[in-house]
């Protein structure tokens, strides 16, 4: 790899090397892909023998099992499971909330930086095993996606692309619309990784409904600030949405914080539930901790089954 100066600040080589032992393993690889390392159910030019069948005219002579012919005097073809690539579609939230420091604190803790690091890590794992990785940024407006890249040699292009991304000023989180648009695309089924804070004003129910529309395995990576489930707020406030500018007067006391935590937990459980039901996973990436160790929890034995 030859990281650029811009990408090296975000993704240093040591960071990426720590990911080399990880792998995304698809439980089911859709047919129609290119030759890669994901084992598919299709018979083809794989390396893993699976069956034989009688020869019919037109079959490739190279697949004839000559040992079986000598014993049975019949011509059979050796069948192998074909190794294909896994489409990995990543949705990157570039809304303004991804650049907002945690409430009640002044020090910047950039969600977007963590999100890009997570995208890079997962893309590296995929590209390292010849999976096709595409990144679809979203806010409330459409943005050009990064077309699928595959292979280690093309990974630096993804890094450079990620390094050039930034939070859209005033961009609103419209995750629901982004998910619906993504679901309606005729893409080869694979793994959909949503990297976002999931703070769509539409609310938890709309988000869950939109997630269920996505015809891919779902891996939800939620970027959170520390203590986001219990914001360090107190007293009489006018809380302002950083994206919409909407203001809401509020008196924050223990009761409010308790209800806030309850709502937060319910939302988390809803996301986790829909992610688990779609053979994916749910991970909360805290901005105050290193990314790779947190991501590694998704990979049991170094493998993430999607």
């Amino acid at each position, binding site marked *: 790899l030859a990281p650029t100066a811009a990408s090296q600040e975000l993704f240093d080589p040591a960071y990426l090397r720590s990911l080399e032992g990880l792998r995304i393993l698809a439980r089911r690889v859709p047919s129609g892909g290119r030759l890669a390392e994901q084992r598919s159910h299709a018979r083809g030019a794989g390396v893993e023998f699976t069956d034989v069948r009688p020869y019919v005219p037109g079959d490739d002579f190279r697949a004839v099992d000559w040992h079986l012919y000598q014993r049975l005097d019949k011509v059979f073809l050796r069948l192998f499971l074909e190794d294909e690539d896994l489409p990995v579609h990543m949705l990157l939230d570039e809304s303004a909330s991804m650049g907002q420091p945690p409430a009640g604190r002044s020090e910047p803790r950039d969600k977007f930086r963590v999100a890009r690091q997570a995208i890079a890590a997962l893309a590296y794992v995929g590209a390292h095993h010849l999976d096709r990785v595409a990144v679809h940024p979203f806010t409330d407006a459409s943005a050009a996606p990064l077309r699928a890249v595959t292979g280690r040699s093309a990974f630096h292009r993804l890094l450079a692309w990620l390094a050039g991304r930034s939070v859209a000023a005033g961009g609103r989180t419209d995750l629901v619309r982004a998910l619906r648009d993504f679901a309606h695309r005729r893409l080869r089924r694979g793994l959909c990784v949503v990297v976002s*804070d999931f*703070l769509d004003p539409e609310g938890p129910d709309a988000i869950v409904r939109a997630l269920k529309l996505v015809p891919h395995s779902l891996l939800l990576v939620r970027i959170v600030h520390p203590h986001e489930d219990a914001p360090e707020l107190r007293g009489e*406030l006018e809380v302002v*949405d950083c994206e919409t500018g909407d203001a809401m007067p509020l*008196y924050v006391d223990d009761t409010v914080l308790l209800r806030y935590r309850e709502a937060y937990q319910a939302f988390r459980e809803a996301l986790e539930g829909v992610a688990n039901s779609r053979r994916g996973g749910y991970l909360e990436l805290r901005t105050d901790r290193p990314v790779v160790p947190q991501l590694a929890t998704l990979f049991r034995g170094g493998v993430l089954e999607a």
Partner: protein
Amino acid sequence: MSLLGLPAWAYAAGLAGLAAALLGLHLLRIRLRRQTVDSLLFFRQVGAVHKPRVLLGRPSRWLSFALGMALLAAAWTAFAGPRGADGAPSRVVLVDATAQAPAGSARSAAVLRAVEALAADAGLGPRGRIVAFGPGAVTIWSAGEPLARGAERLAALPDRGTASSRIWAALGEAARSLRPGDEILVLGGPPDLPDRIDGIPLLRAAVEDLSAAPAIVSVRLTDTPEAGGGRALRIEAGSGGGPGAVRVELGAGEALAADIDTAAGATAVVELGPLPDRALPALEILVTHGGGASARTRIDIPEARPLRVHVGADLPPAVALAVEADPRLEPAADLAAAEVAVVLAGSGGLPPELPALIVEPGQGERIRQPRRTAACPLPLGLRDRVRPAAALHAEPGEVWVEDAASGAALVRRSGIRIQIVGWLLDDPTHRDVPALILAAVHALDARPPVVVGPLAAPLPAPVAAPAALAARADAWPWIPVLLLCALLALCTDAWLHHRSRIA
């Protein structure tokens, strides 16, 4: 600091301004703190039932506001008047508007200058008033009005030729309207005022222009036995410095007059009389000054009450007849009801405090010729006679009639008793006998002289204006304490508020 003695409107305006400032500060302090968050997603789920109650709903905030306001109001009240707007010490100024004071605009200007100086120096307080006394007691200014209004009313007061001074009534009314700690200040008035009226201190101040003006101090109605028993006027007046004249208008073109020459502020007594026997319900008295200034007053003459005289039954009838003939005397049969008794020496029952003419009977030396002395009020012309008669005992006293030869006393006054040798009454037809009896009876009249007023005086030597009211000065030490308390309370409140916000 000169906030003392603020009028009610200024006190209220200042308090309202402070309250508005504190309220603005309070509302500014409890405004909503803006906090930008990632999303309102979860806040919306809980915010509907937890709206802030900034303005009206936080009792603790308003309690702190009320505390601060109370302390601020206390401090302001201490500045504006230590006892509060209504309880601050006050002064009632009594202004001499009697005839001896300058009239009209001159009086008004002089008094206005004095009152303005007083108000600027010490203030008149919330119950302060200016009352003019003279024809009556008239309030010409009350607290809250501009002083010029009082001057206008003072100038418009009727003067000259009014009834007697009403200063005592004005003093009593002023004392009743004041509270302990207040003061009464008199500009002018009689010189013999007490130090306190009903517990209220009474102060004097000078109006310079008044002391140099003609003034009528007092008018007394007196008898003039020398002039045949008529009445006279004893007038104490001041010319205001230099020669002047006192003139009494008796009506019907008659007048009595005398010259007068006193220094400024000084007085002299002038006796004018006798007054005519006809009824004189009122007199006009005018004191003029060589410079042209004048003082005029109208005196109502009260009707004289006859002197009740008891005449002993054992005395010659001529004595009783003489008493009955005098319209100024009234025979009294009962000794207890009498004001003067004419009794024979040795008669019992004479009260020791009752003035009495005592007739001494008895024989004695031969008297050659009675002769009146200088002390005798009558120009007697008793007939020379040689009679054996007893002379009066040589006791200390005032000899009215004596024997020309031996010098023995025949009529002598000693205190409230007059002794007369009895033989002087043996000849009742002599014209001097009834006169002597009546002169003695009138001389024994112990009733106080009729004072027909007015009682006022040119102002005494100018005195310094009274100092600031003592009660107000006493309250000053509390002001820093109140201010410190207010400051500490506000700082504590701000600190607690800051803590609650960062918690």
